[in-house]
């Protein structure tokens, strides 16, 4: 069951990457990054259990925090930058 959940999360991560590459607006990309981050937290905690080393949970916790920090920072900078979605971003 652990393995199945890990595989499911891997599939979702691939979907998130596709959205991040396609994403027409900046916000789609940020959304993809955010989702990718939460999925990584889950993936790492699952891997810790699969491998039988629960020390991995520390890393998952760092991820949960850092992901939030980076999402907030990206939003602040895109705000300060006056980004308009009509512009095509390169």
């Amino acid at each position: 069951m652990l393995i199945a959940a890990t595989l499911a999360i891997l599939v979702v991560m691939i979907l998130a990457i596709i959205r991040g590459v396609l994403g027409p607006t900046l916000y789609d990309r940020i959304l993809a990054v955010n989702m990718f981050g939460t999925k990584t937290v889950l993936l790492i905690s699952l891997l810790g259990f699969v491998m039988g080393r629960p020390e991995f949970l520390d890393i998952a916790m760092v991820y949960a925090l850092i992901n939030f920090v980076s999402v907030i920072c990206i939003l602040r900078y895109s705000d300060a930058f006056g980004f308009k979605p009509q512009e095509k971003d390169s």
Partner: protein
Amino acid sequence: METILSISSALCLLIGSFLCLSGGVGILRFPDFYTRMHAVGVTDTLAAAMILIGLMLQGPEWIAILKLIMILLMTLFISPTASHALAQAAIRNSLWPLIDTQQETAEEKSHRTPS
């Protein structure tokens, strides 16, 4: 007791992975940013909670369970806040949701004609 625990944990993991997958399909298939965010924001929180609870039920020692609870609390805090901030930033920078204009005008017309 052992079997009950493992079955319930497997069930939780199953629900969690299903929710994850549906969120993943949602982020890829929905037409505009806000619906995508809806798909991700809603499923993400519950999926994470389900998977973490599923792991907790398998937890080998109390310190691991404690850490899982911390992660769970953090996810419950962070995930909705991030979604909220994202939506707020998007709407402030005038990214408007995709509205089916044709249907709306048709409805308006149908409202107007009787009067």
